[in-house]
């Protein structure tokens, strides 16, 4: 893995120790501002039956699992275009049916958003992929680093899991 992301700047929004560790091992520089790679990790929402979800809870899940991802991706892609350089976007979160109805909605929306943006921004050299998984370990970090790297130059608009129940 060493060298996969040499010279690349990555901005990670959200918390995944495995992804941070893998990106550093792959030679990327973690940054807060302008980046070549943008990773968004959504925190898992609470598991509740739909009839126990308040609208405020529902909205919070949509904002974290969908709205913020779109708006962040839009900003990132605009910066890539302004620089005249390609880039990679990676969304990470729980599988669509793993939590509550809020995640089912946000996860499904995110999947088709991934497929859409992957094609819409293809000729800007901006790739867009998603990992929807229960896994938090090493393979998640490695797969994230792979998808962000030039080794995955022909992978865009792809949505994948890791383990059997993803």
């Amino acid at each position, binding site marked *: 893995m060493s060298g996969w992301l040499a010279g690349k700047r990555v901005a990670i929004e959200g918390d995944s120790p495995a992804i941070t560790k893998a990106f550093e091992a792959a030679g990327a520089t973690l940054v807060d501002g302008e980046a070549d790679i943008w990773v968004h990790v959504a925190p898992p929402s609470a598991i509740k039956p739909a009839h126990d979800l308040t609208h405020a809870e529902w909205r919070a899940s949509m904002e974290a699992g969908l709205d913020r991802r779109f708006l962040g991706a839009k900003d990132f892609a605009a910066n890539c275009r302004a620089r005249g350089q390609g880039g990679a976007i990676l969304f990470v979160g729980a599988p669509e049916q793993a939590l509550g109805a809020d995640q089912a909605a946000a996860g499904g929306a995110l999947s088709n958003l991934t497929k859409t943006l992957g094609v819409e921004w293809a000729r800007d050299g901006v790739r867009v992929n998603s990992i929807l998984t229960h896994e938090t370990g090493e393979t998640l970090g490695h797969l994230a680093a*792979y998808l962000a790297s030039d080794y995955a130059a022909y992978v865009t608009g792809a949505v994948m899991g890791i383990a059997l129940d993803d």
Partner: protein
Amino acid sequence: MPVAAHHIVATPPPFDAPPYPADIFAGQTVLVTGGGSGMGLAMAKAFAQGGADVAVMGRSIERAAEGAAEIAALGVRTHAMSCDVRLPEAVAAAFDEAEAALGPIALLANNAGANFPVLAEDISANAWNAVTRIAIDGTFLCSTEFARRRIARGAGGAIVNNSAQYIWTGFPGDAHSAAAKTAQATMTRKLAADWAPYGIRVNAIAAGFFPHASSTAGNREGGIEPLQNMIPAGRTGSIWEFGWLSAMTCTSIFGAMTGQVIVQDGGESLRRSLMMPDYVPPRERADGPWGWK
């Protein structure tokens, strides 16, 4: 039309810079079905770049031997064999032969397949049987032979299946392959579940267009150049990036991955809009610019 100059096309590292160390498969043998040419040869070379010895299985021993010679040039041991993957006894005999030559098979790449564009009404029973049984029965028979041997040894292993980008959409004008390639992908998930207790991982790559010497679509006037602009990524795939991803799913780097079908197609299968060019039935475009004759 060529890809516009202001478009940005993402490209992979060159063939001699694989994404894993040269010894990641050291001491392991991979069996690659249909490994003598095309995408199977690309898979075989990717495993060899990680130090795996390679058993190359093909319908034609001549082609398998040619491929094996190219793989051996990467510095690993190889063994070429002829086998019809539709016949369980032939598959078992080929595994015996490969293991006698190279040691236990620890990795399996199911690539064997036949594919040719043809109108559905023109697919003979023989053609249907050939295309579907090589991919569907062949993947089942080779995978189960592999798994029984791994389970008996008390050892895990990894399988990667070569599926196709058109598995979720249908493929008008290629009905036999549409059915066959989807079966490979959907059986991937169930085989992974059946063999998870034994440490055997099973994944598939739903591959886009990776031109090679024997691919149908590349055999046209002007070669593959005019095809680059049809694909969102702005290019057809480089065959070694397909080989690498296939082999990667079998490495410890992706050690927790199983039951996955990863689409690697430069966005090709997703390209659509509500307003598209007029629909033309396959039988009315067979001779046209988007046909295959």
